[in-house]
């Protein structure tokens, strides 16, 4: 055996045993992990900071903060109008955007012929999903506020305009996620339905939709949570910054001034007083509770019902 052969064999042997320490590899994977941890750390600092500042206020004021109206005096200001507004917006967005979005998704996935019209609708929806939310606020201002003003519902800057704006904003998101859920239902299920003589709608209604419900639900809840955290479109569509009184009956509730939790956060965050800083954090905790509960619920639903066909 020549020496070169022995040297080569030794090198191969050592290399296969992995004696050489892969320093670059370790550093690289360390950097990757650090990036990921950095992201998680931001989340922790962000939430921790709000609790550190806002929790004392929440504890001191108790439910009083949740049940008081807006006020320019920090010791009296509360978020009840924002809670009511956000709850009403949630109902309006669900009632308007969910049915239209799901029906559109059904059409695109189950009915639409592969022609130019379908392609136009599809591309259009994808682009709508990428339009910045503040632009939807302009749509709300130019179309919905103007419409209600023309109809004589107050000055048009009411919660109906806000709800319609948010509904339109999340419509593309609802359509895209619902369509994905419907697409994931295997064709064999549809074929089984047609095989026993079901009509197209019967197949959709009795077979496809029940299988797609978990996915659709996840998508719609995520979209709703996104809508509830939106601020910019509501500012443009006429939500009130600053305090106002909510007296009067239902007419005033729908036709009068309105606000929402994120709007209150924005308004208080702009105020210079230190008391409002703490109050802002308290309001953020309430807002995060609302949106995070919705988000976590959606993620839970997906993990619970995630089905591999």
């Amino acid at each position, binding site marked *: 055996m020549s020496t070169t052969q022995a040297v080569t064999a030794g090198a191969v042997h050592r290399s296969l045993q992995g004696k050489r320490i892969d320093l670059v*590899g370790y550093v*690289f994977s360390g*950097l*990757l992990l*650090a*990036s*990921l941890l*950095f*992201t*998680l750390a931001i*989340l922790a*600092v*962000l939430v921790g*900071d709000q609790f550190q500042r806002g929790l004392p206020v929440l504890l001191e004021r108790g439910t009083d903060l949740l049940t008081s109206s807006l006020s320019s005096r920090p010791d009296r200001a509360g978020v009840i109008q924002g809670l009511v507004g956000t709850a009403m917006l949630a109902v309006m967005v669900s009632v308007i955007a969910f*049915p239209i979005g799901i*029906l*559109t998704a059904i*059409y*695109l996935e189950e*009915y*639409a012929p592969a022609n130019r019209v379908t392609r136009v609708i599809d591309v*259009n929806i*994808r*682009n*709508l999903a*990428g*339009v*910045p*939310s*503040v*632009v939807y606020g*302009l*749509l709300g*201002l*130019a179309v919905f506020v103007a419409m209600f003003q023309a109809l004589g519902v107050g000055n048009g800057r009411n919660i109906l305009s806000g709800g319609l704006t948010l509904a339109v904003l999340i*419509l*593309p998101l609802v*359509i895209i996620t619902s369509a994905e859920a419907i697409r994931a239902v295997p064709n064999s299920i549809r074929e089984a339905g047609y095989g026993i003589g079901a*009509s197209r709608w019967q197949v959709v209604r009795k077979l496809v939709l029940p299988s797609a419900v978990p996915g659709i639900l996840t998508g719609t809840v*995520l979209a709703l*949570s996104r809508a*509830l*955290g939106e*601020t*910019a479109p509501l*500012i*443009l569509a006429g939500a009130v*910054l600053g305090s106002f009184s909510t007296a009067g009956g239902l007419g005033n509730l729908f036709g009068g001034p309105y606000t929402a939790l*994120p709007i209150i*956060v*924005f308004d208080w*965050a702009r105020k210079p007083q230190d008391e409002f*800083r703490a109050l*802002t*954090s308290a309001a*953020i905790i309430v*807002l*995060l509770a609302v*949106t995070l509960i919705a988000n976590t619920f959606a*993620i839970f639903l997906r993990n619970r019902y995630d089905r591999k066909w």
Partner: protein
Amino acid sequence: MTVAAPAGSRLQGTPNRRRNEGVIRAILLGASGLSILVSLGIVLSLIFQAFTFVTSIDLGQLFAEGWFPRRGMFSIPTVLVGSLLITLIAIAVAAPVGLASAIYLSEYAGPRTRTVVKPILEILAGIPSVVLGFFALTVINPHFVHAIFTDARGPTILAAGIGVGILTIPLVASVSEDAMRAVPQALREASYGLGARRITTSLRVVVPAGISGIVAALILAVSRAIGETMVVALAAGATAGSLFTLDVLGPGQTLTGAMASLAAGSDQVTGSSSAFLSLFFLGFLLFVITLGLNLLGDAFVRRTRQKY
């Protein structure tokens, strides 16, 4: 004497059933048509009012030395450059962190890490932007920007940019991770079979193979950063207006920030004053820029899908 109906017409179903199916199809098509209506609404309301704005002012006002809408100074370069600065800072934060997280999740992490970490990233993605704006204003600006750059005064473009960057990390991470996971396993096995290390496989095989998706992620992040409003409105600090500036350690104004502050002082800005109409002009610019970026990003996403 009965004659059996021809098979063809029997397969078409009874007239009743066919009518019902027709009605349902019409309802579904109607719902889909609404999305077209929304697009038309956006485009028309923007174009008309933007056009009214441009004709109502002197074109020189668009190139004044700053953006002060109430004084008739509508400097477009000021807000465009402001948006550009914020976007550059945001991408400088989101691209490395987001891509590194994506590579880790796709190539290094085990399934258990992934099931824990991905939902956390989704929660970060679900945090309302107004909350991040407050965070940028009260934590990032005083504790990081001012601590490192002692000559910074008041709210800074840098803090707002970092805030927007944090907001776009989950987007970069999830879109580029999808792209890398779509790379066929066979390519990785071939690489390991040649004796390549994990770092080599990640950087020389997986990343180049998924490059379309990664580029798409970055383009979408740019589009998202340009359109982000609340972080800028709270943390960039130019509520009344801003002179043209390239200084990221001072306040500045962006396309979206200008819109928010115009609308937030909404009592003064109503009717058909040029300050009010300038909202729609800014919205039109923003719409055109993000539409272009989204179309480009979409084209890249589609390329990844077709490849394998």
